[in-house]
C-alpha cells in the first residue's frame, strides 16, 4: 500500500463510515508520521465504523501509554531501542563507550519494567497490541559484527522476557516478530535519513507492515470454523481403493512426509476446536478399514465428523457436512488435490475458501500450512474448543431422537439427565462469552455486537448481571451455549444482550435460565431490549410464547406471566 492509498482509505471513510467511532490509541517514542497514517488506514479498512486515532507526544513512549484516554476501544504500542535507553537512539549523543555497557543494560532493564507495567495497566481497560524493537541495534558494542556482544544479548533477552510475560496478560497481544520478518525484511526497515530529519525511523514499507500487523491484532478477522478435506493424495499419499490401507503412506521413507505433516496439522487444529469433515470419492468400507488397520494415522477417526465417503459430486457431500455443522460456507476451508473437485465445490460455494493440496510442491504445502494456521488462529484455547466436535455429534443424535419422540416431548426431555451450569458472572478471561455474543444470530435478543472494551465497561456498571450457561446431557456436553447480560434495578432485570447457540435449542434452557434468575436474584419483571432482526426468529418465537402474544420490539415479562406460560423443566441447575 502506498501512502497515497492509505490517505485515500482514510479520506473516503470520512464520507462512508457510519456508527459510533472506533477510538484507537497509538503510542510510540518517535514522531508517528507515516506509521500513524498506515495504522489509521489499516484499522479503517477492517471496520465499517469511522476510526478516530489518538497519538501522544513525541519522545515519551511510557507517558503516551499512561495518557491513553480511558474510553479507547484499543491501543497500539510501538517500542524501539531508544525508548528504553536514549543511548540507543540515533537522535541522541549519549556515548557508546565500552564502560557504559553495564549501566546501559541495567537502565534498559529498569525502564523495561516501567514500560511493562504501563502496558499492563492500559490492558486492564482495553486491548493493547505491542510491537517490540524491530530495528537493528546501533553500532554501540565493541565486538566485530559477526560476534554477538554480551551486552546486546542481554538487551535482547530483556526484550524477549518482557514480551513472553506480556503475551500471557489478558488483553495484551504481541506482534509476532517472525511474521513481521516475513512482511518487512530486517535490512529494509530503518530509514536513518528520515529519522535524523523528521524523527521518524521507519521506511514506509516497514511502517506499513508494522501498522498492518497491529491492526490485525486489534481488529482480528473471525477465525474459520471448519475444514473439509479429501483423503487420497491429500490426507495420505496414494489411492486407497487401489493399493489398500497398507499401501497408503505419509512418511519420509515413501517420500510422502507432506501428508504426515498435514495430518499432524489437522490433528492440532481439531484440538483447538476446528471442525474437521471428510469428503472423499471412495468406497466407504475401504476408508473405514484404513482407520481400523492403520493405527499410525496421526489424525484419529473420532476427530472427524461427518465422514462423507461416496461416489457423488463433492459439492453434495460438502452441503451435507455444512448442514450437520450448521455453519456457513464462508466459515469453511475445503482442501483437495483434484483441481476439478476444487473447482466444482468452489462454484457451488463461492464464499468458501477452496484450496488445492500441492502434494508435489513442498514449498507451496508449507505456505498452505501457515495459511491454515492463520485462518483458524485464535488467541487462546478454551475448554469448549476441545468438546466442539463431540457437542455437534451429540446435538445431531439429540435432534434425531427428539424428532422421533413426537408428542412425547416431556418424557424425552425428562430422560435426558440434563445439567445446566450457570456462572454468574463469568470470569473476564473467558473469551468464549463475548465470542458467543458476537457470533450468534438466531437466538439473539437484538443482534447488537460489542467490542471487548465496551463489553468490559458494561460488566463494570453498577447492577450489571452477566450469566454464562453451560449444558450437558446423556448425549454429551455442549459447553458454554448461552450468555445473558442485563442491569438489575431492584426486582427488575433489564436484559440488553441474550444469546443461545442453535445447538442448544429445544431443551428449554432459556426457560431454566429465566427461572434461575427469578429465584437467585428475586426478579419480578424482565425488561427485554428485543429488536427484530433478519435472523432472530427463534428469539421472537420464544418471547411470543412467554408473553402469549406476538412481539416486535422491547417487551416486559412479569414473573407471574412467565410462570403461567413456562413448560415443565427437568434439568438440574447448578452454579459455578
Amino acid at each position, binding site marked *: 500500500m502506498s*501512502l*497515497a492509498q492509505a*490517505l485515500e482509505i482514510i*479520506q473516503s471513510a*470520512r464520507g462512508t463510515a457510519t456508527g459510533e467511532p472506533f477510538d484507537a490509541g497509538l503510542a510510540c517514542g518517535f*514522531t508517528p*508520521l*507515516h506509521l500513524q497514517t498506515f495504522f489509521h488506514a489499516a484499522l479503517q479498512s477492517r471496520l465499517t465504523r469511522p476510526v478516530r486515532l489518538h497519538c501522544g507526544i513525541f519522545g515519551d513512549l511510557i507517558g503516551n501509554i499512561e495518557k491513553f484516554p480511558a474510553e479507547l476501544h484499543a491501543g497500539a504500542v510501538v517500542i524501539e531501542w531508544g525508548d528504553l535507553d536514549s543511548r540507543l537512539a540515533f537522535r541522541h549523543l549519549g556515548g557508546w563507550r565500552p564502560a557504559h555497557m553495564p549501566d546501559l543494560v541495567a537502565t534498559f532493564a529498569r525502564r523495561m519494567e516501567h514500560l511493562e507495567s504501563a502496558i499492563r495497566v492500559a490492558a486492564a481497560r482495553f486491548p493493547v497490541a505491542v510491537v517490540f524493537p524491530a530495528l537493528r541495534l546501533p553500532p554501540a558494542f565493541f565486538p566485530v559484527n559477526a560476534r554477538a556482544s554480551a551486552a546486546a544479548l542481554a538487551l535482547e533477552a530483556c526484550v524477549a522476557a518482557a514480551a513472553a510475560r506480556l503475551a500471557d496478560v489478558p488483553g495484551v497481544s504481541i506482534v509476532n516478530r517472525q511474521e513481521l520478518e516475513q512482511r518487512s525484511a530486517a535490512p529494509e526497515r530503518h530509514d536513518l535519513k528520515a529519522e535524523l530529519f*523528521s524523527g521518524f525511523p521507519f521506511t*514506509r514499507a516497514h511502517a506499513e507492515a508494522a501498522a498492518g500487523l497491529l491492526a490485525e491484532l486489534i481488529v482480528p478477522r473471525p477465525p474459520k470454523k471448519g475444514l473439509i478435506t479429501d483423503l487420497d493424495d491429500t490426507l495420505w499419499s496414494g489411492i486407497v481403493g487401489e493399493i489398500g490401507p497398507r499401501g497408503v503412506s505419509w512418511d519420509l521413507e515413501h517420500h510422502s512426509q507432506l501428508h504426515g505433516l498435514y495430518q499432524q496439522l489437522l490433528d492440532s487444529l481439531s484440538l483447538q476446536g476446528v471442525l474437521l469433515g471428510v469428503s472423499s470419492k471412495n468406497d466407504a468400507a475401504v476408508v473405514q478399514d484404513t482407520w481400523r488397520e492403520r493405527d499410525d494415522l496421526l489424525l484419529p477417526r473420532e476427530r472427524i465428523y461427518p465422514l462423507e465417503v461416496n461416489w457423488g459430486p463433492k459439492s453434495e457431500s460438502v452441503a451435507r457436512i455444512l448442514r450437520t455443522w450448521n455453519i456457513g460456507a464462508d466459515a469453511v476451508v475445503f482442501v483437495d488435490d483434484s483441481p476439478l473437485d476444487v473447482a466444482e465445490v468452489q462454484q457451488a460455494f463461492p464464499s468458501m475458501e477452496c484450496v488445492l493440496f500441492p502434494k508435489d510442491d513442498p514449498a507451496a504445502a508449507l505456505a498452505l500450512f501457515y495459511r491454515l494456521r492463520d485462518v483458524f488462529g485464535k488467541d487462546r484455547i478454551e475448554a469448549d474448543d476441545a468438546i466442539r466436535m463431540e457437542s455437534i455429534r451429540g446435538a445431531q443424535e439429540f435432534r434425531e431422537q427428539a424428532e422421533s419422540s413426537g408428542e412425547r416431548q416431556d418424557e424425552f426431555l425428562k430422560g435426558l439427565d440434563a445439567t445446566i451450569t450457570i456462572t454468574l458472572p463469568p470470569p473476564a478471561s473467558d473469551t468464549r462469552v463475548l465470542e458467543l455474543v458476537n457470533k450468534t444470530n438466531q437466538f439473539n435478543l437484538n443482534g447488537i455486537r460489542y467490542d471487548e472494551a465496551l463489553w468490559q465497561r458494561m460488566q463494570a456498571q453498577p447492577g450489571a448481571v452477566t450469566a454464562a450457561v453451560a449444558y450437558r446431557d446423556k448425549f454429551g456436553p455442549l459447553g458454554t451455549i448461552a450468555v445473558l447480560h442485563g442491569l438489575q434495578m431492584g426486582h427488575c432485570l433489564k436484559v440488553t444482550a441474550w444469546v443461545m447457540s442453535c445447538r442448544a435449542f429445544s431443551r428449554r434452557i432459556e426457560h431454566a435460565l429465566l427461572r434461575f434468575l427469578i429465584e437467585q436474584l428475586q426478579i419480578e419483571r424482565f425488561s427485554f431490549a428485543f429488536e427484530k432482526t433478519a435472523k432472530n426468529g427463534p428469539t421472537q418465537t420464544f418471547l411470543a410464547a412467554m408473553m402469549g402474544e406476538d412481539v416486535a420490539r422491547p417487551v416486559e415479562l412479569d414473573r407471574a406471566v412467565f410462570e403461567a406460560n413456562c413448560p415443565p423443566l427437568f434439568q438440574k441447575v447448578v452454579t459455578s
Partner: protein
Amino acid sequence: MNDIDARLRRCFSLTFPDLAASEIPSAEQSRIQGWDSVAAITLVTLIEEEFAISVDLDKMPELTSFVAIREYVSGAA
C-alpha cells in the same frame, strides 16, 4: 492543465483534504493552517511516490507553495 499539474493536485488534495480544488494552484504554506512540518513531510513523501523521485531534504524549506513545488518537480521528474 498538464500531467504534472494534475498529479501534483492529487498530492495536495490527499495532504490537505479540506482544501478546495480551486484553491490548490495558489496554495501557500503561510496561508494554509494545516501545512505544518508533518504535513510538509507527508506532501513530500506523496510527491516522491507519485513522481518516483527523491526530494532533496535541504530543498524542503523552499518548497512552500504549489508553484514552487511544481517548478521543483518539473526540474526533477
